[in-house]
């Protein structure tokens, strides 16, 4: 499991860096083309918006693996080690349920409906369902990370590693 965890991390990191890099180039191209060529391409803004959705939601899934989401830990830090393990496990279970219900099932239904209605983006003519596909994919990744975090909770908290 640790092998998959590390491989998955590497893969998402690479993906995030590429999307972010493209995002910067894309918007710079939009400004540049408007001032140098006097017109802007119609697809740059759409591409940027879709990349932001992917960057945000996939990035959020990645943060679950790193346990770096913002949380209020002033009560948590007062817990004993045993209680911290329990609290971490309960938190991860809640996150997994939310991801399964909203992101995987709700997200998949959203993708299904948009594809079924055949909605296309105006400039790129991309089916919007493909853009929303990142929601159920990230949901599945979050569930994997939750299971991984639960499996190592005992060890990592007692050994005081994050």
């Amino acid at each position, binding site marked *: 499991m640790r092998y998959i965890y590390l491989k998955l991390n590497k893969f998402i*990191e690479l993906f*995030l*860096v590429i*999307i*972010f*890099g493209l*995002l*910067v180039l894309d*918007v*710079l191209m*939009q*400004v540049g083309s408007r001032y140098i060529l006097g017109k802007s391409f119609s697809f740059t*803004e759409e591409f*940027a*918006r*879709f990349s*932001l*959705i992917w*960057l*945000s*939601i*996939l*990035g*959020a899934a*990645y*943060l679950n693996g*790193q346990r*770096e*989401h*913002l*949380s*209020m*830990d*002033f*009560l*948590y830090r007062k817990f004993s080690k045993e209680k911290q393990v329990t*609290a971490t496990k*309960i*938190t991860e279970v*809640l*996150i997994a349920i*939310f991801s399964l*219900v*909203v*992101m995987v*099932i*709700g*997200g998949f*239904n*959203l993708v299904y*409906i948009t594809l079924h209605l055949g909605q296309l983006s105006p400039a790129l003519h991309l089916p919007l369902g493909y*853009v*929303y596909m990142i*929601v159920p994919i990230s949901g599945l990744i979050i569930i994997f990370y939750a299971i991984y975090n639960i499996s190592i909770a005992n060890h990592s908290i007692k050994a005081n590693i994050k």
Partner: protein
Amino acid sequence: MSIEVISMLVLFGLFFALLMYGVPVAYSIGISTTASLLLNIDTLPGITTVAQRMTTGIDSFSLLAIPFFVLAGELMKRGGIANRLILFAKSLIGSLPGGLGYVNVLAAMLFGAVSGSAVAAASAIGSIMTEPMEDEGYPRPFSAAINIPSSTTGLLIPPSNVLIIYALASGGAASVAALFIAGYLPGLLMGLALILVVAITAIRTKLPKSKRSKFSEIFTHFRRSFFSLMLLVLVVGGIVAGIFTATEAAAIAVLYALILALVYKGITITDIPNILLASAKTTAIVMFLICTSMAMSWLFSFEGIPQAITSYMLNEFSNPIVIFLIINLTLLIVGTFMDMTPAILIFTPIFLPVVTELGMHPVHFGIMMVLNLCIGLCTPPVGTILFVGSGVANISVSDVVKPLFPFLIAMVIVLLMITYIPAISMWLPNLFGLN
């Protein structure tokens, strides 16, 4: 009890319970929103709506400014720009009694403004200033107490990500350009108030001064930090003049900061993937909070909460002065345990209708709200900047609280001035004809 009241109790009760238990904020918002919505509508449409609101809520070109300003800030943090700003500030005002104290305030303001991030300012300036201040006889808790509130002033001085988030939360009632230009005077006023507190302490406890800089030295340091400061002119000037949008300006800031950091040899080309990844992580934290908060604020309007609160407050307290006070107190309490981004996204839709009904401009309210929540960033139990600031100074949070207290009082006084004197926020936007 009606179903609306029950679903509201579920929403807030569950949200605070999850938050306190240590569930990540974004998930606390998402889980309580989903649970509350499912009391009202069927399961499959309900969860599909939440998924849809989360996605379409961030499908916005203006939100793209956030990852770019985060990236530009990261480049500046690693690019040696903080040090140049400190030397410039020191040559200007280091020779007064308590000089390094003012230098800290000014450098944190400048760096907070150019980087757009209070966390970056607190860590970059604090890690450089703590040692030299200690050598000159400033106790560490006192220098941390100066650094922490000063770092938040950059959130008001443009460019500022939280003001962009507020513009989104206001549903277009306040434009980014107007908010940016409105932030200058309140930001400067807050800086002055903090400098005043340093001055009073400096005179009372006879803090040391550095030697006076020659004019040629000031000029040298100004030249060395000139290109960093030009970023402010370029970005804000371009937005206010309408040459480019906030998002395009942010992308230009990235390019500019990248060139500066490479020329100053703070980073090399091979550092870029790491910088992109670090910024992607910060971006995802903020953006995912926005995702679930957008679902929650959609639920608010679905349930008619803003209208209910508006009519309740207007009936119960007829006096605007009292209502503004109540809103400020609520936000101060919220700010002590909730981070700024979710607080803005959740409470703007609730309070904005009340204050606009009373004649407060949405831009004015945005400035008031950000300043109010800045105070919460510096207070226990959950002040992000308080933790970062005491972390870089290597002292415990409880040591900082006492010297920090006078600064917090000064911030509250500035908050009251901003609240009740609209001209401080609105004079500049009116002058430029921005709404």
